[in-house]
């Protein structure tokens, strides 16, 4: 199972990147939680910040809510209708949208930022707790999928917090 996570460029990230690989090797998938979309403000992409009960013993509520709120902010930034989006739209229309063949849209730029953020969150916060967030774009932007891992072996790997009864208050 190699190359599933893009190679980290930062030296610091290398050790935490190791966490993710160890997680996959030593842990088995126990359950998945799906964070649904929040449609109260319309069709703009926003996820519910309600804390799922399955994660109660796994991660602090504030950390989870921060992650979701940051993601929501990113999506709001991508979908914002304002001066920049008008400019992009008009310029693209004037070139019969051929400019999109060479230029990246603003949405795509923000999606890259989101992917980086999710990877960072996984490495720093979620993997040590035996959790893994899937980028919503891989699920059609419908849900944030959080996989819950159960530690297979008793030999301590870095994902020690996934032991059964322990709470992970830090």
């Amino acid at each position: 199972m190699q190359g599933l996570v893009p190679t980290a460029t930062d030296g610091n990230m290398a050790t935490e990147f190791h966490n993710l690989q160890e997680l996959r090797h030593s842990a088995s998938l126990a359950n998945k939680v799906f964070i649904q979309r929040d449609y109260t403000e319309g069709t703009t992409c926003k996820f519910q910040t309600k804390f799922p009960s399955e994660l109660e013993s796994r991660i602090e509520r504030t950390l989870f809510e921060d992650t979701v709120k940051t993601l929501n902010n990113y999506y709001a930034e991508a979908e914002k209708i304002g001066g920049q989006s008008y400019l992009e739209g008009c310029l693209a229309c004037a070139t019969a949208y051929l400019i999109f063949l060479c230029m990246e849209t603003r949405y795509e730029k923000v999606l890259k930022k989101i992917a980086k953020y999710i990877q960072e969150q996984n490495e720093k916060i979620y993997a040590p707790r035996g959790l893994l967030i899937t980028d919503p774009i891989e699920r059609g932007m419908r849900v944030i999928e959080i996989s819950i891992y159960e530690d297979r072996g008793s030999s301590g790997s870095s994902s020690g917090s996934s032991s059964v009864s322990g709470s992970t208050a830090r």
Partner: protein
Amino acid sequence: MSAVMITRKVRKWEKLPGKNTFCCDGRVMMARQKGVFYLTLFLIIGTCSLFFAFECPYLSLHLSPAIPVFAAVLFLFVMAMLLRTSFSDPGVLPRALPEEATFIEMEIEAANGNVPAGQRPPPRIRNVQINNQIVKLKYCYTCKIFRPPRASHCSICDNCVDRFDHHCPWVGNCVGKRNYRYFYLFTLSLSLLTIYIFTFDIVHVVMRSVDKGFLNTLKETPGTVLEVLVCFFTLWSVVGLTGFHTYLISLNQTTNEDIKGSWSGKNRIQNPYSHNNIIKNCCEVLCGPAYPSVLDRRGLMQEDPLVSATCAAPASSSSNPVPQTTKTTAPLIPNEHTPDEAKPGIAASAEKTPSPKEEQPPDTKIPPLATPETDAETSIAKDKTH
């Protein structure tokens, strides 16, 4: 074909469910029936060729060389918009993977409680509040998801499409969130092109008839008759369509909503998506952000079954293939964190092979994946919903 199995890179578009056809290794996405699309192409290219062949030499000499130049620019714009509408992903929502489908089923079962034997379970509807209006989200039995607001299932393409407008056979594709503005610009520019050609055809015939007489003109430029015929019939339909869509855009409605009467008087629900300001509505629809495709068509399928979820960089339709997929087939193992009602479901689902088809044998222990027949609402309204 060699006998040795050299692993061929399989791209995700080859395994996508739905009735789409893909070309150029997943870059182009269309509906299956393309006959009418070829007719559209033929009519546009044919009429414009006749115009350039018959009218333009005379008009550029006697009136202005700018006439064919402007016609050419307009023609290129029309073709660009048509191809963009036809070839792009309209906003297809990928189907739920087995775990997500099971999760939703369990939520529904929990919400329904115990249904007495012999009685049909209540229809699968989720109510959400959008801008102080209650909007009902319907469950899609094919895609196994609750459709987001404004999404609808296209029966021709067999996909749920976000902000579904309609399926256009002339364009050979669905019109949805991602390609609606291209479709609108296509109809608008085609109207202009048709009016332009029609006008200059008349001008040309008049000018030439003054010199040589009407019948001689028709003999010299027989193409004119064809062009005028095509333009005359096209005018009524395309200009009407453009006007209709301009009306829809100003109200921020889709054709689908208009036909179903979702926001018209009887239900007393106002359109929760409209800004109640024509300019704002137009700006949102036409100048909004360019949404990315959530269908990863060009990504590579990973055949390794021992996968776990990854946080991959998103793949746009034109980027280099991203070699990741999250096809988790590892069995779900219940632990004490699993909600109680899910335990038998998880154990049973580990036995059966996950499959996205809706017909499931009824003897599995998991909540039977519902079909429209088991649901009270859809069995009545089967014909109406797509």
